């Protein structure tokens, strides 16, 4: 297998390292916003979701690692009455199915619908069991005008974990037929005091699961960092995180349930690195303590922010890749302790992910 990295940006999809060249190379959609990218490890196919603005959300698949692309249908909301009848705004995240579902894809969208495909994206169906939850009326937008699903994690037991901004953490143990609202213990400081602990309106910026211990779920929440040991049903807040517990991205170590990485910013109202020093933090003890790493990262007058999907860890637990809103892309081969700049001139980066080719 040959590893490479996919980089979804505001103005195209790039790969790095496909041909041994460390410079990012545009492999499609130059000039167009790529909102999500996925390589399905079952068959190697790459999916790219676009947000064309004028012309709506689009979806493409490549079966030859980006050499050619085929446009696919996009998930569509069923007909409804009224001016507020829902329509797809964009695809925020894509996820593969479980081990026995090689053609299965999940799509998390704005305005809050989860969609499923069982034919490699050739057709889509709204997951009505989640869409019709009575508490959906309580959901609201976080960062966008409407609520959206940004985290979909399917573990090897086919359990599905979904994160919604702002609609909390949802869990299905039966392939999406039924859903349980998790997220007990999450705390929303942006709400009135008696709604602060309401799991229906939480803003989990990003969820990440330890591959080999999937009951351990990390949550970079709007109001701090949380960790679950029961598959997302309940969380404990991790406090006293320096330099800040605010951020968007989290990456979970694939085999060590006590290790995770974060990229802090000052706070909600000031989304830049603390004191202009861009760092990555890592805990190796379940959140009891954090280390802050700066080697290779800008340490003065830095304004980089890392979006929720723009930090990824490889299967070895030591390789990380990270991209920022100011178009910088870094790689670490030592578990985040030092970083190499791959490019400082990419468009704003929405997502990075590791990929392989046979």
């Amino acid at each position: 297998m040959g590893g490479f990295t996919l980089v979804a940006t505001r103005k195209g999809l790039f790969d790095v390292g496909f041909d041994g060249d460390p410079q990012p190379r545009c492999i499609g959609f130059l000039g167009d916003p790529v909102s999500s990218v996925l390589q399905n490890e079952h068959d190697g196919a790459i999916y790219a979701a676009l947000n064309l603005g004028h012309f709506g959300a689009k979806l493409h698949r490549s079966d030859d690692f980006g050499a050619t692309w085929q446009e696919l249908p996009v998930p569509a909301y069923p007909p409804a009455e009224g001016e507020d009848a829902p329509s797809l705004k964009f695809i925020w995240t894509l996820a593969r199915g479980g081990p026995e579902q090689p053609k299965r894809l999940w799509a998390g969208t704005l305005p809050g619908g989860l969609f499923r495909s069982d034919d490699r994206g050739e057709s889509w169906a709204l997951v009505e069991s989640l869409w019709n939850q009575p508490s959906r009326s309580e959901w609201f937008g976080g960062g966008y005008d409407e609520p959206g699903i940004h985290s979909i994690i399917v573990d090897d037991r086919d359990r599905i974990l979904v994160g919604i901004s702002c609609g909390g953490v949802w869990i299905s143990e039966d392939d999406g037929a039924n859903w349980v609202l998790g997220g007990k213990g999450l705390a929303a400081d942006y709400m009135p005091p008696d709604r602060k602990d309401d799991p229906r309106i939480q803003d989990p910026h990003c969820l990440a699961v330890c591959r080999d211990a999937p009951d351990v779920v990390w949550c970079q929440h709007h109001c701090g960092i949380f960790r679950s040991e029961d598959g997302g049903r309940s969380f404990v807040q991790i406090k006293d995180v320096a330099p800040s517990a605010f951020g968007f991205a989290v990456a979970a170590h694939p085999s060590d349930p006590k290790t995770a990485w974060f990229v802090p910013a000052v706070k909600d109202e000031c989304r830049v690195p603390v004191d202009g020093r861009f760092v990555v933090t890592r805990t190796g003890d379940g959140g009891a303590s954090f280390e802050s790493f700066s080697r290779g990262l800008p340490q003065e007058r830095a304004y980089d922010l890392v979006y929720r999907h723009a930090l990824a860890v490889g299967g070895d637990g030591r390789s990380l890749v990270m991209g920022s809103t100011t178009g910088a892309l870094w790689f670490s081969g030592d578990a985040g302790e030092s970083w190499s700049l791959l490019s400082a001139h990419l468009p704003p980066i929405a997502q990075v992910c590791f990929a392989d080719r046979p």
Partner: protein
Amino acid sequence: MPRVTFTANLQRHLDCPSLEVGPGNVDQVLAAVFAQRPVLRSYIVDDQGRLRRHVNVFINSTMIADRNGLSDAVGESDEVFVFQALSGG
């Protein structure tokens, strides 16, 4: 027959030469277009069949009035233009 022409900015994403279809209202004209080119549909209208917010449709030199119901009449000799609003950076 009415002729439907698409902005060059749309042609950047997919091949969509001008088409001639039967008269009716804008909804019927676009339905005839989508019957010939199904992939065009999601570029022009949203999931509920409403004109996308940043897409404009003109009948000759007049912008249509009914963006949701697409009920504006299209005559036998009319020309329909599908444009995009200009924005972004």
